[in-house]
């Protein structure tokens, strides 16, 4: 860690991709260090990104820790800072500090079946786990990805998901039927039920809108998944990233330090303040 944890490192935007257009647009950014190297991270960790003059925002790192050359972030345009991100061009320099928070215990899951269940922009926080697992495909048994968007235009990482099909099961869904859509139509929790995943020797990792997570977990429980087998990440408003500014706490835990990754066994005992 640097001496001054609040002082960001400079990073250059090397690549920008439009994932989703429209009012809730999502763009993916790859950033590279301007000087030296960036910090190492683990799956599920976040970084505080700055646009100087606009402010900072905590964003989960969407690239695999195995990739050291750059870090990838997918950012939905929702407010002041994220809108500024959507105005960036390749070559622009931003600030980055981190990594923050805990991580998915990926190493503990070796030899298990992995189910990833994502919705909307909730694919980004679990994407490093998916890509790491795929990169270390031999370590894991079956890998299944459920992912849904409101419409087909809201599906992010479209080409990457298609590529995944080579080595993992990918089930895409959209909320309402559309012409030309071959995947599942309906909400993600239902899509999961539809495929009836087996809880045996399995871990389920879910991320998405709170309401989706809630029903996914209910359904997983119904399917026989134990609370310890279900992992999710939560996001709360953060400013410092180091457990001092006081706003991201859920009970005694600062999400930026103890989170954002929780097993449902842990999370269900925390107050519902997220």
């Amino acid at each position, binding site marked *: 860690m640097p001496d001054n944890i609040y002082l960001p490192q400079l990073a250059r935007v090397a690549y920008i991709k439009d994932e989703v257009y429209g*009012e*809730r647009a999502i763009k993916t950014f790859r950033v590279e260090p301007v000087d030296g190297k960036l910090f190492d991270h683990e799956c599920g960790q976040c970084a505080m990104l700055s646009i100087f003059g606009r402010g900072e925002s905590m964003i989960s790192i969407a690239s695999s820790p195995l990739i050291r050359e750059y870090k990838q972030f997918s950012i939905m*345009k*929702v*407010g*002041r800072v*994220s*809108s*500024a991100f959507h105005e960036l061009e390749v070559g622009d320099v931003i600030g980055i500090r981190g990594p923050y928070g805990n991580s998915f215990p990926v190493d503990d899951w070796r030899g298990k079946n992995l189910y990833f269940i994502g919705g909307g922009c909730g694919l980004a926080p679990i994407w490093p786990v998916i890509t790491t697992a795929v990169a270390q495909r031999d370590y894991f048994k079956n890998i299944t990805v459920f992912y849904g968007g409101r419409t087909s235009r809201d599906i992010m990482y479209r080409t990457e998901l298609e590529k995944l099909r080579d080595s993992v099961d990918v089930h895409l869904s959209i909320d309402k039927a559309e012409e030309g859509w071959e995947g599942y139509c309906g909400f993600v929790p239902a899509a999961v039920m539809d495929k009836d995943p087996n809880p045996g020797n399995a871990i389920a990792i879910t991320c998405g809108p709170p309401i989706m997570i809630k029903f996914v977990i209910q359904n997983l429980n119904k399917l026989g998944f134990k609370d310890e087998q279900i992992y999710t990440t939560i996001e709360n408003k953060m400013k410092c990233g180091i457990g001092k500014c006081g706003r991201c706490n859920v009970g005694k835990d600062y999400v930026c330090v103890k989170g954002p990754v929780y097993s449902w066994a842990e999370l269900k005992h925390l107050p519902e303040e997220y």
Partner: protein
Amino acid sequence: MINLQDIRDTARDMLAKGEVRTVIGYRRGTRGMLAEPAFITDPAQADDLVWNPTCFHNLSLYLVEDRKFLAHLRQNPGAPIGIVAKGCDARSIVVLMQEHYFKREDVYIIGVSCEGTGVVDERKLAPHLNGFQASDAVFDGDDFVFTTAQGEKRLPAREVMADRCLECRIPFPKEHNLVFGEDKTGRQLAEPFAALKRFEAQEGGDRWNFWSHHFDRCIRCFACRSVCPMCYCDECVVDSITFPVTSETSAEEKANRIRWIERSATRSENITYLMTRAMHLAGRCTDCGECERACPVNVPIRLLNNKMEREAREKFGFEPGASIGGPSLVASFLDNDPGDFIR
């Protein structure tokens, strides 16, 4: 004299009959003598209500909160809400209704006349108690009587009364459904704007020294704004600690919120905040004095509001909270408004 039991009986009665769903009044707090806002819904609790010289809160603030809460729940008000209101508070209610914040029939105003008195100013009282805290305060004619650990302390009301009460021109809730106490409109213990005049006389040419000192001291805790029934905006234009987000709110709109001032509590930003607040209260402030009372660092906020009130009165003949249908100060004009300052 106001018979407290009458107020309690009325509240109990109305609650029991379902004529009001809540009575907002005052009850004894747990810190010394001070009253605190009470929200009585159970007729059995009506006897909690008190009326004494520490009933300073302008409870109309909670009518605003109530409406916001109902709007949040998407509920209709149903039975009206009862509220104990002094003269200044009742005028605040009038301004709120003038601004369509709620309808007349949604509120049942249980008026209480301040008669020949007013509420205590804790800052004036403190030196009289030699560091002791009073556990009770009551009206007694021209005196306030305080109970302290050292016994009873009787003080002439005008010595410890809030300036605004001394200067009050209309210590009677003209707008009411029911009123307790005599209408002593016109009684003034001090002339209107006396504190303002004192300030102007004393500060003379050195206003800036005075004000810059106070502007430096503001910690922007926003208590003045939070306690003010007129500061009911969902988002404050100057410095927002909240912003309304609906499904219609675009990311762009959120990104483009104007930052008129910075979050730092520095002098220039504090001035812009406090001045804007004074401008926005012009013609709306009914001089309930809550902002100044709430201020933890004693910034004399009331002077700013008083100044605006006096200008509006003298230049435009405007009296805030005079009538529900009346025009608001800055949305109206008279052909003969003074214009001699214009070149």
